[in-house]
């Protein structure tokens, strides 16, 4: 194959404007070529579906062990989690985290999650107008995840949201958003360190089992904070974004809501379509360990590649009519919103369970979802709604 010249671009995905209107910047990057060099950051970006997919599925060339963010200085600090490691170590720690999060393991908590979903929806119907983010998108994961992890009751859960936001910002460039989160990251680090001490997490919880594994010598003690972090931070911001978008998309597309009411079995596909169209995670990076051709472009070993999931999920080369929200889309399951390949989101079954439980509750109790105008978060890594007024009509 003839190699193609790699276009250089001054498009900056991390300006306020690009963050508020990401899809224009993504389209421009996709149209430039299969791989684009982002001058400003010295990284290469893949914005089309095919190249993002291919890179994610070649984890031997595109490694995670040197960090998955844009800033090398911060990548060096990412160590020990399953997100930022390579096989064989990755497979061991992923197994330790995944065992609680598989669909099979989550059967045990299905009833618990469904009860919370029903209570929340009842309460919000009663309330009248509420905010999609604070009262729904954040309220739900905050109600269930810390409990499952074994979070001590006397520790403030609202800190979790700030920590998660800071953690995800740090995957971006070293801009004001990232730097503002440093004190919070320090706080989160101290908290995770404390939780790594036996006895601080609720006995029998997921986190307590991880601590017990370290005591049994299955994992090194000093890796515990990173592994507990694997559970915590990713369970918040991403789910908050997906759940808030769920209300927004069904509110904006009442025909799709009516369709789901008529065909509740579409719920699983509907959740895929929500994550495809409003991907909560914009993307992660990989480090290339060998010279490799991607999309016809010759890349050198040592290149840092930004893989834009949110752009791949809107790539008109892969999807018919990608802007359209269509819960009957036959290939919605092919989205890359959870990443893909061996690092595919370890919590995706929990995320699907949260989404599906809330959809079930809404389907049973709500006739129409009325939404106002959303404002969007200014965040390096998470695409999501900041505020959105909603009324649920029973």
């Amino acid at each position: 194959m003839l190699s193609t010249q790699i276009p250089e671009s001054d498009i900056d995905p991390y300006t306020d404007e690009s963050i508020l209107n990401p899809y224009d910047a993504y389209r421009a990057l996709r149209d430039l070529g299969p791989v684009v060099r982002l001058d400003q950051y010295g990284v290469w970006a893949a914005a089309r579906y095919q190249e993002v997919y291919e890179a994610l599925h070649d984890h031997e060339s595109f490694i995670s062990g040197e960090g998955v963010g844009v800033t090398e200085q911060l990548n060096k600090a990412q160590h020990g989690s399953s997100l930022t490691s390579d096989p064989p170590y990755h497979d061991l720690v992923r197994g330790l985290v995944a065992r609680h999060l598989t669909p099979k393991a989550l059967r045990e908590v299905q009833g618990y999650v469904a009860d919370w979903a029903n209570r929340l929806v009842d309460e919000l119907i009663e309330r009248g107008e509420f905010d999609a983010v604070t009262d729904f998108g954040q309220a739900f994961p905050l109600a269930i995840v810390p409990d499952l992890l074994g979070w001590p009751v006397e520790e403030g859960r609202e800190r979790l949201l700030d920590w998660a936001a800071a953690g995800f910002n740090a995957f971006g460039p070293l801009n004001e958003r990232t730097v503002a989160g440093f004190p919070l990251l320090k706080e989160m680090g101290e908290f995770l360190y404390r939780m790594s001490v036996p006895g601080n997490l609720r006995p029998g919880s997921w986190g307590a089992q991880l601590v017990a594994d370290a005591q049994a010598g299955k994992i090194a003690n000093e890796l515990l904070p990173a592994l507990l972090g694997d559970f915590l931070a990713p369970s918040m911001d991403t789910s908050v974004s997906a759940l808030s978008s769920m209300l927004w998309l069904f509110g904006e597309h009442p025909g799709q809501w009516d369709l789901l009411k008529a065909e509740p079995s579409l719920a699983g596909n509907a959740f895929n379509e929500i994550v495809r169209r409003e991907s909560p995670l914009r993307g992660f990076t990989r480090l290339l360990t060998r010279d490799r051709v991607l999309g016809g472009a010759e890349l050198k070993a040592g290149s840092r590649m930004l893989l834009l999931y949110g752009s791949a999920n809107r790539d008109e080369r892969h999807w018919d009519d990608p802007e359209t929200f269509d819960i009957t889309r036959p290939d919605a399951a092919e989205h890359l919103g959870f990443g893909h390949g061996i690092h595919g989101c370890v919590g995706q079954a929990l995320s699907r369970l949260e989404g599906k439980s809330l959809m079930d509750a809404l389907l049973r109790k709500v006739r129409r979802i009325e939404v106002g105008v959303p404002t969007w978060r200014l965040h390096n890594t998470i695409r999501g709604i900041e505020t959105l007024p909603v009324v649920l009509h029973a």
Partner: protein
Amino acid sequence: MKLSVEFGRCEGHGLCEEAAPELFRLDDEGDLLVLYDPSAEIPSGQEPAAERAVRVCPVGALWRLDHSQAG
């Protein structure tokens, strides 16, 4: 066409079953059942479904084996 099914990476998300119900199923326990001999060729006519299953497995547990070597 042959596939490699990596049970060690399978987490039972079940997307393969949706894509290729004749080839993969989750049993009542939520564990993966392979409904054909995974060391053999994909049954005739099931290749498109098999390709879909490989494409949608979210955790890299299904791979297409390149069988270009003479066999």
